[in-house]
């Protein structure tokens, strides 16, 4: 017998009643979590699996003070009764009960989540170690990988370069040739 399933918006066979049942049962199982995928039975093939990462998650972040879900999802009987009491007047709650309610909803307080750690020491140590390793690698590379430098870096060639720079009077006011004493042919003291 064909029935029109309003949930699936399609014609399904005898399963239309089961479709409705499954949807409400699934909603009750998952509790207060939001259903992001539609629960629908199509021709008896099964429900699309709801992945963990698609559901709202809890995380302690300073920028996101009120996460989408409570921290504790499965309440113990004590916690459940406390939640019932929370529905009444809050002045009737003791300080311990208020803290217990806070711990149900949140994992770490702001003070706890913003705590400084000693992680920076490990980070700096890692940086120095890797820089040392890189230095060793560079030294090895300079010895075994690179070929000889150009002839223009020989000492005699550099001497001739220096003399030419002085002859040209390069930067005679404040720079290079300003430090050379042309009368006595030496660097100025």
């Amino acid at each position, binding site marked *: 017998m064909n029935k029109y399933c309003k949930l699936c918006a399609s014609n399904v066979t005898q399963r239309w009643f089961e479709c409705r049942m499954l949807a409400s049962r699934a909603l009750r199982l998952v509790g207060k979590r939001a259903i992001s995928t539609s629960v629908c039975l199509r021709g008896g093939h099964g429900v699309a699996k709801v992945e963990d990462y698609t559901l709202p998650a809890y995380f302690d972040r300073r920028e996101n003070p009120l996460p989408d879900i409570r921290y504790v999802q499965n309440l113990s009987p004590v916690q459940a009764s406390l939640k019932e009491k929370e529905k009444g007047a809050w002045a009737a709650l003791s300080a311990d009960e*208020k803290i217990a309610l806070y711990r149900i909803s949140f994992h770490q307080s702001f003070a706890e989540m913003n705590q400084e750690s000693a992680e920076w020491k490990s980070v700096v140590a890692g940086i120095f170690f890797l820089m040392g390793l890189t230095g060793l690698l560079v030294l090895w590379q300079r010895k075994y990988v690179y070929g000889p430098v150009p002839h223009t870096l020989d000492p005699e060639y550099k001497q001739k370069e220096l003399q030419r720079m002085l*002859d*040209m009077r390069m930067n*005679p006011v*404040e720079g290079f040739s300003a430090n050379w004493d042309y009368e006595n042919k030496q660097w100025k003291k």
Partner: protein
Amino acid sequence: MSLPKPLMRGLLGKRLRFHLPIAFGLSLVAAIAFKYGVTEPRKKAYADFYKQYDAVKEFNAMKEAGVFESVQPSGE
């Protein structure tokens, strides 16, 4: 459990009122320091250099050193 209510408003204004005068002051100090530490000595150095500068003498010295392409040293 009764903490005083924290400051909720005017946080940016307070920060700006504190930091902006300091920023302007420091920039001004930096500019003045650069002017009297760098540009004035530089201007003086150039003025002193050119006070006693004989262009022809320098040219002849350079010519003898052989750095020009259009003029050869007097020996050749």
